[in-house]
């Protein structure tokens, strides 16, 4: 189902019912189970969730960058009218790094250690633009300037190991921006960096996003990052979307026990301190044998009988008054017959904060 937010434009990327599994010796790992979301031009969509919830695999499925044992089983991902799941590989290639680009968690391992960073940027530009090496190099210098790498023309000839972690991630960002993408997927771009460097890189990303006007999907563990830079968020758990909505709405009025658990694990949000999620008691489900019902049921303090039997639907704003425009939550407590749990489904809480 489509979750309509207060957006006037068409989504640039529309993912519907995406399901991805890995086939290993031990069986089928159901990493992503029916994920739907939209990304609108110029917005930053955050994806949060504990490790293994399927954040990366969702994005890798969209870009068709899965390891050989992974397969998209169902669903679609429409980017500018083209369904990426069925696009011929040549066209997919023309899109990657050009219209949609990606940066990864660890800039240390994401750059090829045996090629100069300049070469790695130049080859990206030349894969998509008919330009000479010299012109591509000129563009690379501009990009280094853009991401604030000092003495760009000299640094172009350096190898990745000659950069610090933060500078390396800037190189990755420069590379990702080299062909003016319409959508940038950033998979935990700051997780591997020092705290002070994290802030700088994040600031840079935010600044570039508003300057260049591209859409960004930002995957992160860090709710501080979410609060600071994203417009909307997708909370994932057990390969599913648990809750989604505008950032302010989800922080003020979370309507899913899992989102509430995540938010409670942050001591003081107003201090703006970046905080890794301290885990909710219990551990995430084994995706080899995902539970039949709500994946969060074993850890949920409100779990009911039905929760272990069937997966709840994603309740949208129109279904229940507690959900705000653009907000949706996958929880049985939003069913008309569910008992009242004030913090999740009670009317009085709406607009309290």
């Amino acid at each position: 189902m489509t979750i309509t937010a207060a957006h006037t434009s068409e989504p640039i990327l529309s993912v519907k019912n995406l399901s991805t599994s890995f086939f290993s010796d031990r069986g089928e790992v159901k990493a992503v189970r029916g994920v739907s979301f939209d990304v609108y031009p110029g917005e930053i969509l955050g994806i949060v969730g504990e490790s293994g919830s399927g954040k990366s695999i969702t994005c890798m499925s969209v870009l068709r960058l899965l390891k050989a044992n992974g397969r998209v089983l169902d669903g679609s991902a429409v980017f500018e009218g083209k369904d990426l799941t069925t696009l011929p590989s040549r066209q997919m290639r023309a899109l990657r790094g050009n219209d949609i680009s990606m940066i990864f968690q660890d800039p240390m391992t994401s750059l090829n250690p045996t090629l100069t960073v300049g070469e790695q940027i130049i080859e990206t530009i030349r894969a998509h633009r008919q330009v000479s090496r010299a012109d591509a190099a000129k563009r690379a210098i501009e990009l280094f300037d853009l991401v604030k790498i000092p003495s760009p023309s000299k640094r172009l000839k350096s190898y990745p190991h000659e950069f610090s972690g933060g500078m390396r991630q800037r190189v990755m960002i420069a590379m990702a921006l080299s062909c003016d993408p319409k959508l940038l997927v950033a998979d935990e771009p700051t997780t591997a960096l020092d705290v002070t460097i994290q802030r700088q890189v994040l600031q840079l990303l935010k600044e570039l996003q508003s300057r260049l006007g591209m859409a960004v999907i930002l995957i992160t563990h860090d709710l501080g990052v979410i609060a600071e830079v994203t417009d909307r968020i997708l909370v994932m758990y057990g390969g599913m979307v648990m809750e989604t909505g505008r950032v302010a709405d989800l922080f003020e009025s979370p309507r899913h026990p899992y989102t509430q658990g995540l938010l409670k694990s942050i001591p003081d949000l107003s201090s703006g301190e970046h905080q890794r999620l301290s885990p909710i008691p219990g551990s995430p489900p084994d995706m080899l044998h995902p539970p039949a019902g709500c994946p969060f049921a074993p850890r949920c303090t409100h779990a009911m009988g039905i929760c272990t039997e069937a997966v709840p639907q994603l309740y949208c704003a129109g279904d229940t008054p507690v959900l705000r425009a653009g907000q949706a939550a996958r929880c049985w407590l939003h069913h008309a017959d569910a008992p009242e749990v004030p913090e999740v489904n009670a009317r009085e809480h709406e607009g309290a904060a």
Partner: protein
Amino acid sequence: MIGYIIRRLLMMIVTLFAIITLTFFLMHAVPGGPFTSEKQVLPEIQAALDAKYHLNDPIWLQYFNYLKGIAVLDLGPSFKYPGLTVNEMIVEGLPVTMKTGVLALLCVVALGVPLGIVAALFRNKWPDTLVMVFATIGVAIPSYVVATVTLYIFALRLGWVPTFGLDDWRGFILPVLALSGFWLAFIARLSRSSLLETLNEDYMTTAKAKGLHPMQVLFKHGLRNSLIPIVTVLGPVVANLLTGSFVIEQIFALPGIGRHFVLSITNRDYTTIMGITIFYAAFLMVMIFIVDMIYLALDPRIKLGKASS
């Protein structure tokens, strides 16, 4: 870089000097001499021989003279074959040894690496299985077994190739096969695992995510990185092909340096033993130097010593 090369060359000379010294004194510490053979030699003849080869000189003088000879690339006369110098023996055997050695090395690299790549790219499919079965057999069977069995089947039984000698190109087939078999299999396995490891690296995903052509991803980003561990073992491979050639030249009766070397040991032909040892040592050092240079060119992360920067 230049500084590093010069330092390496100097170190090679020092190492070679140490090897020369060591072989010389070890040789002289071994009981028995070249002329104490089974046959009884008259004392006068013994004395004459000793005098001819300066064996009565003090050992330091002999050593000094030997060094002087090496300085002008003269490894001295053979003790066993009067009128033949060690230099002549090496020059005579070199073409055969080099031809089989180079062919074997070519087999190892030009066949082993592509086979490994094919296996990795078709992981768990039939080409992989096929390569891995042969590679496992190749690693498991010693070269002298390969040599004798193939000799028996293809030379004696089927008569497709000569049993010995190198009169035409077919004579090379079995020796090269026996010499390279193990390392061909070894390199194929190593290339496979190395490429599989590389294919799993994050930067390979990055390369794909940038929209590069799959060939560019594989050859520019994958192959170069997966070659690094292969280049590192190339030095030991060359050394092992060298020692392997002693046995192979013996089995196939090839007139190479290896055969001279083995014979010189049974003959207690001091100067020949020393000469060939030193020749081999120098050759290996040069090969390892070349391998290191390739390694350096492949992997920019290798830091040269401070002196070079």
